[in-house]
């Protein structure tokens, strides 16, 4: 494996690298990778560039096969990959979204300062660990009645708010209003339902987390104010997705798309790129199932938000409204959606695949709700548990160049086993505690896998995105407590 050192890369400028379509027979468009001289070295260390080139083989792909600076080796698409396809000629690839349909991030802002939180931080983290089920095979606190799962799959966040898990105003602070249109529960298999049935309101494992943090720095006070953020304020970030239900939906449709691609003789360099024409029955069913799984994910993050609010209220002995705890925004980073994108300077409708990448619509975008249209939507770029995370806002240039997309995080550097070899979980827990970061949930081995050193430095990633002109920094969040899945 490996052998990507010699992969043909042409430098476009300080932050852009082109993979010419001539470098592989079958590539339909160029690849474009966003990175600086340092990050490109990490990127070249695994097979991520090969995967950028592979994505360029998809029938109907428009413009470029894109890779964000947090790109790393995935399966099919790289993690950090973005591709748009034509509605008529294009294909949809379930592996181009990832197995965790609508894995995403949200941030909640509290009317609390770090000083007010500190004395109760340990109590709060213990209480959060009790309130939100985490880890492998965790079961949710919700017992869905007959018909409830259908309503979750079609209603998403709306179902959760109507069922009492949230505030009506939460709905206008989520991508798609937390409810993707076109969801059809009939396209979600019995197996997917079985896997999801008792997992609504669970965090999951791996890199999922709930992080209590503080707004350490504001770069753009006007935008931060518009998003409801100010320096010194306590925040909560939730990273989770559609749990077993979404994983099974993805598996079911990878298998169907594989059969469809073979039937149609679509030649692909990686079987995980399995795809079906957007207009085909398989393509349409997958879009309806993806929307349903995405709604499950939005309901999932919403239920956990409700328990976070309840927990803060209990620990501080006041109502959750008294503590603010307003939703700032919620967005996906594994999804495919119909959007109006720029290709060759002209706007057209396309199906945008984002796998480990975020939508970053700028100010004035017609698909943003009135609340965000004057400013653009917030984009959350979580880093590792020891450093920082950023709130950003996309630019017109991103809309024109990357289908309105930016990075989704720091991106892994080390494999999980390499992280476990190099880092002892117990040592890491101690060193984080010494720096005032309380960790709950994960065992030592799982903690080592998610250690800061296993990730690239998110500041470096965000720096590339900003200097390439795709987005601007709005605020920097730093962790105080982490509940790991």
């Amino acid at each position, binding site marked *: *494996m490996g052998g990507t050192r010699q992969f043909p890369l042409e430098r476009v400028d300080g932050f852009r690298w082109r993979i010419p379509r001539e470098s592989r027979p079958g590539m339909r468009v160029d690849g474009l990778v966003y990175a600086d001289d340092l990050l490109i070295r990490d990127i070249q260390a*695994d097979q*991520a560039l090969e995967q950028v080139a592979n994505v360029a083989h998809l029938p109907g792909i428009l413009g470029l096969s894109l890779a964000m600076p947090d790109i*790393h*080796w*995935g*399966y*099919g698409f790289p*993690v950090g990959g973005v591709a748009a396809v034509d509605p008529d000629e294009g294909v949809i690839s379930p*592996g181009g979204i*990832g*197995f*965790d349909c609508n894995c995403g991030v949200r941030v909640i802002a509290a009317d609390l300062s770090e000083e007010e939180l500190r004395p109760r931080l340990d109590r709060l983290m213990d209480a959060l660990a009790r309130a939100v089920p985490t*880890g*492998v*095979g965790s079961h949710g606190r919700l017992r869905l009645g007959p018909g409830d799962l259908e309503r979750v799959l079609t209603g998403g966040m709306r179902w959760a708010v109507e069922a009492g898990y949230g505030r009506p105003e939460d709905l206008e602070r989520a991508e798609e209003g937390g409810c993707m249109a076109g969801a059809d529960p009939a396209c979600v298999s019995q*197996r997917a339902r*079985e*896997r999801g049935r008792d997992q609504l309101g669970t965090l*999951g*494992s*791996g890199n999922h987390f709930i992080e209590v943090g503080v707004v350490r720095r504001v770069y753009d006070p006007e935008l931060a104010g518009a998003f409801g953020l100010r320096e010194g304020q306590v925040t909560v970030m939730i990273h989770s997705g559609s749990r*077993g239900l979404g*994983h*099974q939906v*993805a*598996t079911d449709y*990878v*298998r169907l798309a*594989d059969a469809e691609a*073979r039937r149609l003789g679509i030649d692909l360099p*990686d*079987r*995980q790129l*399995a795809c079906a024409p957007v207009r085909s029955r398989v393509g349409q069913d997958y879009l309806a199932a993806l929307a349903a799984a995405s709604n499950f994910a939005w309901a999932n993050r919403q239920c956990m938000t409700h328990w976070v609010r309840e927990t803060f209220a209990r620990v501080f002995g006041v109502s959750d409204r008294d503590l603010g705890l307003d939703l700032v925004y919620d967005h996906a980073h594994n999804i495919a959606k119909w959007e109006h994108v720029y290709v060759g300077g002209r706007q057209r409708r396309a199906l945008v695949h984002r796998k480990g990448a975020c939508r970053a619509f700028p100010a004035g975008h017609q698909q943003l709700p009135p609340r965000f249209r004057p400013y653009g939507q917030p984009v959350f770029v979580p880093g590792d548990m020891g450093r920082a995370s950023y709130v950003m806002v996309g630019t017109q240039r991103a809309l024109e160049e990357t289908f309105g997309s930016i990075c989704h995080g720091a991106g*892994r*550097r*080390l*494999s*999980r*086993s*390499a992280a476990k070899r190099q880092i002892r979980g117990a040592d890491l827990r101690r060193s984080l505690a010494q720096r005032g970061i309380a960790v709950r949930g994960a*065992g030592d*081995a*799982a903690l080592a896998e998610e250690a800061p050193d296993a990730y690239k430095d998110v500041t470096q990633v965000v720096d590339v995105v900003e200097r390439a002109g795709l987005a601007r920094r709005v605020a920097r969040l730093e962790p105080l407590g982490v509940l790991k899945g």
Partner: protein
Amino acid sequence: MTAGAPDRDAGYEILEHTADVGLEAYGPTPAEALRQAALGMAALVVPPDQVRPARRWQVHVSAPDPDLLLFNLLDELLYLHHVEGMLVHDVTVEAEAPGGPGGSGGAPGPGRWSARAVARGETLDPRRHRPGTEIKAVTLHGIALRPEGGRWVGRVVFDL
């Protein structure tokens, strides 16, 4: 082609992958390579020696090609793990190539590969088992089950 006891000609190893994890399994027959892959996947969750052989699960899968047979078998076992909490102590696998001797019931269709596996193990008990990794899914990335240098090799990447 029934898998025998593990020996030096059969086994599995975990492959490095930046975000996820890969597995290479091998054996003298397709069945043994499949069996080793199933054991390797099980070991990522809970080491088989920490699992009691208290219960049996049977699965039967078929596929148009051997690569997809590996995918389908592991996906079926993963489903049982997620929905029934199945943990694996040991597995036996029988596999048939197209045109091979037909089994009774569920005989392979024309041109299809098939495998039958019996897993012995127990249901996950959070008091005794600490699952190490949540495997979200089996991927088709680089999936392979094929003869190489006189033995059968299976390769697979899991989404974690």
